[in-house]
């Protein structure tokens, strides 16, 4: 009886899978299919996102211009006749508008293009920004007065949309801002080679423009604002975050207080970002009276928001350094600080960098807290991070806006051309994020290759 086999199952061949194995294999195949389906859905979502954003936004990097000669008559642009830019600045854009309209009409006449539109209707084909463009050129170079210049004039948003396929003859019928006649004329001009659609540097460098002139709106101020904020976040959050993590991870005694701090840091990472906006509004603007909408305040708020992310990432990468390295250093007579700075920190650096850049990327895309501290303002002036001419608090920076906030405010505007602009701004934002991730990868490689 002691030789009884444990199982009384009948002997079976290895070639025939039993029911249990078949079931198990099926479950395994099923699970793999779920995984592939999940990845497929993710990739599909990404493709849809990219296609829609690129489809909508790429056209904002191209802009339609019409070129014709303009005579800058002295009595119009320089009534005093002394070529002094200060005096000439008294002539506003309204002074340039008739000049421009007349030149456009004259150009059509010279080209022999017949049209029954009046001057006003013709001028409406050009951007409202065009007179300002010419005025800027004249003020920058007073020698132009009296000359006839061959200028590339920004065309109106609807005309631009017509060449990009957004506006059609049918939609123009129902549109109070453009008439089919204007579009036909634009087409004739284009056929004669007077209209050019070229790369739009102004989209990247120019400041925002008002709601009625989407063709002139650019991201210049937003990019500078975002850049300054990233600078503030990097300068503040990286050292504070790394120092805090090193202390908590390596030096702090394990007691109830440090447990409490730890839990709170994890909680802070999950606090909705708008709460940080309210905090920034209350502390930095109302209490400390820093300038509203300045990139410095934005940077401070984003620093608070990014700190938990950096601390958590840094602590994780410090913890991942094998304790044997610390012991080796201590065993050689290194002090705790030496063992951390000579051995642990360099090993943890790639992780810390990745965490920091993820935190920065998160901060770069953050909108809600910035709305609360007034960074949604319409800003035409290029800001300084530290400005001496600010009113309340010296060195506190001019007002600015930020990329995601610019996207937000453009989507609020009624002109459909801003949809294109907003998508274009998202592309710029994504390019920024890609660049940051690329830097993270490169730095990682560099640091890892050193050992």
């Amino acid at each position: 009886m002691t030789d009884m086999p444990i199982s009384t199952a009948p002997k079976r061949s290895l070639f025939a899978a039993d029911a249990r194995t078949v079931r198990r294999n099926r479950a395994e195949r099923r699970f793999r299919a779920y995984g592939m389906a999940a990845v497929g859905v993710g990739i599909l979502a990404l493709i849809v996102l990219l296609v829609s954003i690129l489809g909508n936004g790429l056209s904002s990097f191209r802009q339609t211009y019409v070129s014709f000669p303009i005579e800058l008559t002295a009595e119009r642009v320089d009534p005093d006749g002394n070529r002094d830019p200060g005096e000439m600045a008294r002539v506003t854009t309204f002074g340039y508008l008739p000049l421009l309209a007349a030149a456009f009409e004259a150009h059509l006449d010279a080209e022999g293009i017949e049209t029954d539109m009046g001057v006003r209707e013709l001028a409406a084909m050009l951007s409202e920004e065009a007179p300002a463009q010419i005025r800027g050129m004249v003020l920058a170079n007073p020698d132009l007065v009296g000359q006839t210049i061959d200028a590339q004039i920004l065309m109106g948003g609807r005309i631009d949309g017509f060449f990009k396929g957004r506006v059609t003859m049918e939609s123009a019928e129902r549109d109070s801002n453009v008439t089919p006649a204007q579009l036909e004329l634009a087409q004739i001009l284009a056929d004669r080679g007077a209209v050019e659609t070229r790369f739009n540097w102004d989209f990247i460098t120019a400041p925002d423009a008002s709601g009625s002139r989407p063709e002139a709106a650019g991201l210049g101020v937003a990019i500078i604002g975002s850049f300054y904020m990233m600078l503030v976040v990097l300068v503040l959050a990286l050292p504070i975050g790394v120092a805090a993590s090193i202390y908590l991870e390596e030096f702090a005694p394990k007691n109830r207080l440090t447990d409490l701090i730890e839990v709170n840091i994890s909680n802070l990472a999950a606090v909705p970002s708008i709460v940080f906006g309210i905090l920034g509004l209350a502390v930095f603007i109302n209490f400390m009276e820093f300038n509203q909408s300045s990139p410095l305040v934005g940077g401070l708020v984003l620093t608070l928001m990014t700190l938990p992310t950096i601390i958590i990432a840094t602590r994780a990468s410090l913890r991942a350094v094998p304790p044997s390295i610390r012991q080796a250093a201590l065993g050689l007579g290194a002090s705790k600080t030496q063992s951390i700075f000579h051995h642990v920190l360099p090993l943890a650096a790639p992780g810390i960098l990745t965490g920091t850049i993820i935190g920065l990327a998160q901060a770069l895309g953050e909108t809600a807290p910035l709305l609360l501290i007034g960074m949604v303002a319409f800003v035409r002036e290029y800001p300084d991070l530290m400005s001496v001419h600010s009113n309340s608090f010296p060195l506190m920076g001019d007002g600015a806006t930020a990329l995601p906030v610019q996207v937000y405010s453009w989507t609020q505007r009624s002109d459909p051309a801003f949809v294109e602009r907003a998508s274009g701004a998202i592309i710029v934002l994504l390019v920024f994020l890609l660049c940051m991730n690329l830097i993270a990868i490169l730095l990682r490689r560099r640091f890892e290759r050193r050992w």
Partner: protein
Amino acid sequence: MSMEDAIMNDMTQIDQGVAVDELKMQARNVDVFYGAGGGTRSAEDMAADKAITHAIKHVDVDIADKTVTSFIGPSGCGKSTFLRVLNRMNDTIDGCRMTGDVTLEGENIYDPKVDPVQLRAKVGMVFQKPNPFPKSIFDNVAYGPRIHGLARNKADLAEIVEKSLRRAAIWDEVKDRLDAPGTGLSGGQQQRLCIARAVATSPEVLLMDEPCSALDPIATAQVEELIDDLRSRFSVVIVTHSMQQAARVSQKTAFFHLGELVEFDDTDKIFTNPSDPRTESYITGRIG
């Protein structure tokens, strides 16, 4: 002649005429507790507390200069813990408390005036698992001299590095690739590199915590040979699971069991004529 024979030969040579040198370190009435938290409770108080692990119980050990002392005993008997008492590595463990006196050349190393960092430069340590820094071989060895300011200039440092690597019997293998990462060496080479690193700070005592447990027999033989060599300059304390190893390399052997020091005597005597029945059972394989 096989490696084994070579070692046995070496052994016999060394064993002849071993005179016990002067006293290097002395431990008196050492108790170690884990999970004791901070505070200044007395040893009796902590020993009575069931929540506290009493890892080392009233251990007295004398470590002689220029001698290899081995600690043997079953797993968890406290031999590694006691080893770490000797260079205050236990200080880095949370909740670990130690009572009793340990002196290095008559100076109490647990005196509040003593900086453990300075102590560890004098009492070097080699760990169970080879743990070279992820830096070049040169930087690994140069690290200790650098932080202790032992080299006046670069040439000096290079000399210390070479001397240490030679002493650790690894110079010939690595002299052409000092810039290669230390982590790229084989396990045995890594352990010898770690020994070179420990030797480079010119310690007076070298503690080794199972230095061969992660190595193959050939690398083990090399390290054992090295330990024997080191004896001419340092006092070496080695923790080992292998009784054969203790018999091969050491002149003094301490047998630990359940946190107590059961027997401490000349290695020959421990392995041939132990006075305690527990020692006898352990070395004959009946307990452990």
